[in-house]
């Protein structure tokens, strides 16, 4: 059967490949069914083997019962195998062949299925052969065997007396036939029937620590008898007596690799206050780690040392007390959790540093047991590695050269890995950040900023105007917030420009008095003209021209001529005439 269990390995390999969830499920299911099939085949094999033995013992009825069971199992296995084959075929058809490895895996799978089918066929053939043999054996003369025991219960190791008779179907005794006696399928004695077909023997009850065991006498025809008589068996049950032993265990402290672990226990024996000195065997994950003896009162204390490479996690600790004659053995198991003691790593390093520089990193390593001495400390900064060891007080120090980087600021990670030399301590690591400031880049950036500032100042400073307004004239845009334009103009202008503007504002004052139109702080000359035009249409023409001249004086770069002032005064007169009637 080992050959066929390779199917599971192949399926397990398939599972490792990248598969969709559905395909993964199908593969898992195929593996499940294959496993079930193998179990069924194993069971069938066992039944056929038993049937073969029974036929060899000339017991066709018993063999027949086994063969019926095997037949059902073969039917079940056939259905399962068909379903697996169909599933594999469908799955392969759906996935297609994507690589050589795929093709090989499928070829191997198909081959295994073929071999399983061959095995099933072989079992079918064997079953048929055995069936026909069983049929043939049914024509043999049946024999009858009886068995009686002088007791229904006995201590293990004690002697018991058995007797019985062997006869054929007509009741005629069968002398000189060998009778074998089994307890719990273990041969414990044999004898030969006497002239009257009876037998009698004394056997020692084996050291089997079960409450009830089958006691069986078997007659297997040999020689010429094989073609004449069928085999026969007789069975009874025997209650076994022995002192039950139990063991209670506990562990003190936590389990850590490389550290001693104390296992305490007590052995108790039924009806005994002093169980006596008993051997104690302790195994961890099926490896014997301790062998010793208990005290006379049954207590024991065992110190075991876990191997340095013991993996973290749950391990099975088994304490076994072997049986000793009428004392049964005892086994107690418990799960122990093996862990490594965590360590604390602290790191002291500057948060900001100028590069290039030598970065000094200090720190300490400790655990609940104290300072961790001689631990390997690996400091990694920007791909550079420095190795050191922790000192007697658990301190460590390392320096790393930081070179210039193309960036102004760079955040680096300081990673410190610590590997203690003690196997019971877990490795640890800690990381923290450091900001690396590039000195060269900072200088370069400062110089660039100064140059940029100077350039901007030169380019963006305000142009120098060729003519400044003189005192005496008022600029409406520079006036304070007041009700009328006259009081708002503070700044005085000089020259012809001032004279022209004085004329304009005289006109404005006149219009304000007569028409009640005021010039606000945000009123433009054109807006004022528009307001005035609405009140009196007759003054539009002269005041419009005056407004144009005032705009020229205020905003035009061209110089104002005395003729402009003269014209402005003329226009003022025209306005006045219109207003005064």
């Amino acid at each position: 059967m080992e050959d066929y269990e390779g199917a599971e390995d192949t399926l397990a390999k398939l599972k490792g490949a990248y598969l969709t969830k559905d395909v993964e499920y199908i593969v898992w299911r195929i593996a499940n069914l294959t496993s079930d099939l193998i179990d069924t085949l194993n069971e069938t094999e066992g039944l056929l083997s038993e049937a073969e033995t029974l036929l060899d013992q000339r017991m066709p009825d018993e063999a027949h019962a086994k063969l019926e069971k095997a037949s059902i199992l073969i039917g079940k296995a056939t259905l399962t195998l068909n379903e697996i084959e169909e599933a594999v075929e469908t799955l392969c058809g759906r996935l297609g062949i994507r690589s050589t490895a795929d093709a090989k895996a499928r070829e191997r799978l198909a081959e295994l299925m073929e071999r399983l089918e061959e095995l099933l066929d072989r079992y079918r053939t064997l079953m048929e052969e055995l069936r026909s043999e069983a049929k043939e054996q049914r024509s043999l003369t049946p024999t009858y065997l009886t068995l009686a025991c002088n007791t229904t219960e006995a201590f293990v190791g004690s002697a018991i007396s058995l007797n019985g008779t062997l006869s054929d179907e007509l009741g005629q005794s069968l002398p000189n036939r060998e009778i074998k006696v089994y307890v719990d399928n273990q041969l414990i004695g044999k004898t030969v029937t006497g002239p009257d077909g009876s037998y009698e023997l004394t056997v020692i009850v084996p050291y089997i620590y079960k409450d009830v065991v089958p006691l069986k006498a078997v007659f297997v025809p040999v020689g010429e008898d094989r073609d004449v008589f069928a085999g026969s068996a007789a069975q009874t049950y025997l209650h076994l007596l022995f002192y039950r032993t139990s063991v209670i265990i506990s562990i003190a402290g936590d389990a850590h690799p490389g550290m001693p672990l104390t296992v305490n226990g007590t052995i108790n024996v039924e009806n005994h206050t002093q169980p006596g000195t008993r051997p104690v065997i302790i195994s961890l994950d099926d490896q014997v780690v301790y062998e010793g003896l208990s005290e006379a009162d049954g207590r024991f204390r065992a110190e075991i040392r876990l191997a340095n490479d013991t993996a973290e996690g749950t391990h099975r600790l088994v304490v076994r007390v072997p049986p000793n004659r009428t004392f049964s053995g005892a086994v107690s198991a418990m799960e122990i959790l093996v862990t490594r003691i965590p360590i604390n790593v602290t790191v002291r390093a500057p948060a900001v540093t100028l590069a290039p520089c030598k970065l000094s990193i200090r720190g300490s390593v400790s655990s609940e047991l104290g300072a961790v001495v001689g631990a390997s400390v690996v400091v990694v900064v920007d791909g550079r590695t420095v190795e050191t060891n922790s000192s007697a007080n658990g301190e460590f120090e390392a320096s790393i050269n930081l070179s210039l980087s193309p960036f102004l600021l760079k955040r680096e990670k300081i990673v410190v890995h610590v590997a203690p030399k003690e196997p019971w301590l877990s490795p640890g690591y800690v990381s923290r950040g450091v900001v690396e400031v590039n000195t060269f880049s900072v200088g370069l950036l400062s110089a660039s900023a100064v140059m940029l500032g100077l350039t901007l100042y030169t380019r963006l400073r305000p142009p120098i105007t060729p003519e400044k307004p003189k005192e005496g004239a008022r600029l409406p845009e520079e006036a304070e917030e007041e009700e009328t334009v006259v009081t708002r103009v503070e700044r005085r202008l000089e020259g012809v420009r001032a004279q022209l503007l004085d004329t304009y504002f005289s006109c404005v004052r006149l219009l304000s008095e007569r028409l009640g139109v005021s010039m606000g702080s945000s009123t433009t000359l054109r807006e004022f003209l528009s307001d005035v035009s609405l009140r009196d249409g007759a003054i539009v023409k002269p005041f419009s021209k005056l407004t144009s001249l005032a705009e020229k004086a205020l905003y035009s770069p061209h110089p104002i001529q005395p003729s402009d002032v003269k014209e402005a005064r003329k226009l003022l007169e025209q306005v006045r005439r219109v207003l005064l009637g």
Partner: protein
Amino acid sequence: MRLINLLAASLVVFLVSSSLLVWFYPTTRDFDPENPFWNGSKNSVKLIEAKPIDNLNELPESSEKAVLIEIPYEPLSEQELVKLSDFLTDEGVLILMDDYGYGNMLLEHLDLSVRFANTPLLDPLFCYKNKWLPKITNVSQTLGVECIVLNHATALVNVSKEVEVVAWSSSFSFLDTDGDSYWSEGEPIGPLPVSALTRVGGGLLILVSDPSILINSMIDIEDNRMFLSALIDLGGRGREVLLDTSHVPETTLEEAKAVLKSVRDFLALPCITPPVVAVIIVIATRSLWSKARGEQVERRAG
């Protein structure tokens, strides 16, 4: 034509045309024997010569010659449960087809332990087009069917010796109890029973964990047609086949048809029809009256 008249005319045309459309458009209700679309059962009903019934009161008095197909997508009342129970006791054959409906109400009423799982049965390997359409190949030889295809089906659970399973899903199917469409730890794995039968009183109760094999789009797939016929014949040939449509939810179209039908019935009342006809005549001849009156006014003025 004045605008108001135009609007009124348009409204009348719209109402009449939409009423005609609703009246004559075929039903789209699931499993409806008149529905010719994918989800109807017109083809199946024709195949098995089933007579649709709208109410369980229409069950024949002697059940021993009848096969009732029940799709309990709406809850069954206590009276209906009693009726179905009596139908079985009187040697009727009841084919209970359910997936996510109320079939378990009847099973509980009949004191059976078997139940519809009411969670999707998916088969990612042996399926028709996709895993929601599992192929069932493990069918009892007595039915003479090789393969049937289910559609968004469920499975039967709590199956004990009281029922005989006649169809099993494949070993690769599973019940998607958490609804994530994939197999998850703890979800029941196939083979799972999808059809079973049991004797109840003198009758035969046949359970199918998917009514979809009846619909037009499924009946012709694989051996579904043969499977349905075989189930009907399980209780003996020559029985009258009845399909209960009263426990299948109605669509909006069905509701609209029902409203139209009640309007028609109302208008057909002897006290309503004459006045309605009179009103229609008045409205229809109103324009003629207006025209005649206009001419009279013109003559007087002239």
